[in-house]
């Protein structure tokens, strides 16, 4: 018999019951809750007279609707206000721990889970948000769920699941200077497509993944969903354990030793079999820029907008034509000739301290180009913001003409006041370039934080590998 994959191990450790057709009742260790996908679930719980199964498994935060400007006035939009207030009331009513809007620990749900140590290796982690795949960076089985499932997890601490197939994506070798985790994952999506991971749980491995920091691994796992896979994951190593150590929700004392011993087993066995293996060469990956309305519509910064006429598949061709029309782009335009109107550095993909450092190193001592109407930096959490301020990154950004905001999802999905106007073009470190994602008619190009900062300074996309960077003062 062949060995087990990491996914097998995580799955097997959480099986409560299996139906005849393989549908499995899977135990959930950590349930993260935010304001958008939970109100109907709490309402359902109340209507059925049910209580949350295990209160301590839940951790809540408002992130999608919160303003990123001065919060002393509360939330101006009455509909957003009601949604956040509803989360507060539901958490108070059921006794669920919540980081409220003015708590320094508030932030994007996928940033604060790991930051607090609420995400631990070996856990099953779910949240009513597709980017829950982020937490897989800790060798957790983590994925997004719908609101009915949020209610199901609240009521039963379990989820009904069919096991996915297992895919291994290896990235071997060394990344070039200026090439980041974001470029790796965009290159992967460019290779396998947005449906490439449908039906799979993806494990990311190889020397280039192991060389990434935990922040970088989170960026890669975050966008597993953009490749169609609900769950992405990376095996445990010393970096994982070092990151978790000492965090508020992390185990301590004897429990810590016991946990670490278990966590070290959370790697795929050498003889484990995967249903599909994809290989990438790190040295070949260049800075990536999306040109269309799906994350798979991506090319390298030294490339050109593709020509639909060269596409033989009719459905794909019409999709490309639609995308170019929406994006206001001509086929064959060099990527570096595309001028931008706004820059967004933030989101659960790229708003952690390392992301902000990478952007600041590019922006330091320079000015945002005059054609860029707004360049904003939105830290992933209040604690990331504090850390960045301790390192003087806020000064670097402000001096360069960026805005320095309060934490939240912000212009990744534009549920709050931060959005693109119709026709505006944005260099964004977020995860989705769908039509209207950052505001109706808005045009999104997905890039890494360093590429976004470089675009802000140049006013158009530019190869960050050719841009001089300034060392930041160590904290």
């Amino acid at each position, binding site marked *: 018999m062949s060995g087990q994959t990491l996914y097998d191990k995580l799955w097997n450790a959480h099986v*409560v019951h299996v*139906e005849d*057709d*393989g*549908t499995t*009742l899977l*135990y959930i260790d950590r349930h993260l809750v935010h304001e*958008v*996908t939970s*109100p*109907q679930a709490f309402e359902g719980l109340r209507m*059925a007279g049910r209580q949350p199964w*295990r209160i*301590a498994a839940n951790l809540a935060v408002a992130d999608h*609707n919160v303003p990123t400007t001065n919060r002393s006035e509360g939330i101006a*939009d009455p*509909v957003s206000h*009601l*949604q956040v207030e509803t989360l507060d009331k539901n958490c108070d009513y059921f006794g669920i721990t919540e980081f409220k809007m003015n708590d320094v620990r508030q932030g994007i749900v996928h940033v604060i889970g790991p930051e607090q140590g609420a995400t*631990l290796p070996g856990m099953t982690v779910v949240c*009513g*948000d*597709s980017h829950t795949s982020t937490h897989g960076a800790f060798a957790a089985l983590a994925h*997004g*769920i*719908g*609101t*009915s*499932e949020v*209610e*199901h997890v609240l*009521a*039963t601490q*379990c989820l*009904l699941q*069919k096991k996915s197939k297992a895919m291994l994506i290896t990235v071997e070798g060394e990344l070039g200077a200026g090439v980041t985790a974001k470029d790796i994952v965009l290159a992967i999506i460019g290779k396998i497509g*947005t*449906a490439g991971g*449908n*039906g799979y749980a993806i494990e990311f491995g190889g020397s280039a993944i192991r060389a990434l920091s935990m922040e970088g691994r989170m960026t890669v796992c975050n966008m597993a*969903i953009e490749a*169609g*896979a609900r769950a992405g994951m990376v095996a445990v190593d010393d970096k994982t354990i070092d990151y978790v150590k000492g965090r508020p*929700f992390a*185990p301590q004392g004897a*429990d810590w030793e016991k*946990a670490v011993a*278990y966590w070290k087993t959370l790697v795929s066995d050498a003889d484990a079999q995967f249903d599909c293996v994809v290989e990438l060469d790190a040295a070949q990956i260049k800075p990536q820029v999306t040109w269309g309305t*799906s994350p*798979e519509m991506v090319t390298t910064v030294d490339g050109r907008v593709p020509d639909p006429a060269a596409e033989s598949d009719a*459905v*794909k061709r019409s*999709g490309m034509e*639609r995308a170019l029309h929406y994006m206001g782009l001509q086929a064959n335009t060099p990527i570096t000739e595309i001028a931008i109107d706004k820059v967004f550095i933030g989101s659960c993909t790229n708003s952690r301290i390392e992301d902000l450092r990478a952007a600041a190193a590019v922006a330091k001592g320079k000015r945002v180009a005059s054609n860029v109407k707004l360049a904003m930096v939105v830290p992933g959490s209040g604690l990331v913001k504090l850390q960045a301020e301790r390192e003087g990154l806020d000064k670097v950004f402000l001096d360069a003409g960026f805005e320095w905001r309060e934490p939240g999802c912000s212009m990744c*999905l534009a*549920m709050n006041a931060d959005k693109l106007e119709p026709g505006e073009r944005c260099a964004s470190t977020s995860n*989705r370039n*769908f*039509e*209207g994602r950052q505001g109706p008619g808005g045009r999104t190009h997905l890039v890494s934080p360093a590429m976004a900062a470089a675009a802000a300074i140049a006013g158009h996309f530019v190869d960050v590998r050719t841009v001089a960077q300034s060392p930041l003062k160590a904290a």
Partner: protein
Amino acid sequence: MEKFIQLHGLVAPLDRANVDTDAIIPKQFLKSIKRTGFGPNAFDEWRYLDHGEPGMDNSLRPLNPDFVLNQPRYQGAQVLLARENFGCGSSREHAPWALEDYGFRAIIAPSFADIFFNNCFKNGLLPIVLDAAIVDQLFKEAEKTEGYRLTVDLEAQTVTTPSGQSFGFQVDEFRKFCLLNGLDDIGLTLRHVDKIKAYEARRKVEAPWMFAQ
């Protein structure tokens, strides 16, 4: 949840791949704390010429005549015909809520995004995967023939065209059972309370740190 047994429904073809859940129900409507009323805003940005916001009277808004679902021949459609990777992106269950509220009961596509696929079953909406070549044939027939209807039989797991051609589809036994009977997952899961408690008791010994307060 409403039962799904059999459906003989008008078909509307949405000829685009990778239709994402942001397109199915744009973010501004996710601010609602209700589960109902999303139908008038399904495909809002494609369907109307103006920008939609919660609280607007949608019956007064200008419709986009180029959007396929606005064509008179597709009014009252219950079967949505779609392309590859339908429902990708955000996990928002507001997407199946909007489609169901609009009037759809079944969606046929060559592939679906996993989370959306799962969410459909929780809402009496049946996602059906058929081979791309069959979906292509159905697109051609639906576009050619006004009033084109398909019969979906969940018990038999078949989709049947007006000419009597029948295509089988796969569905998990458990999901089929739930849909046929309109059963609520939570009630079903709570039959296993003893097993959940036994699992927790075992895990508290093996991995006590998972249960910290």
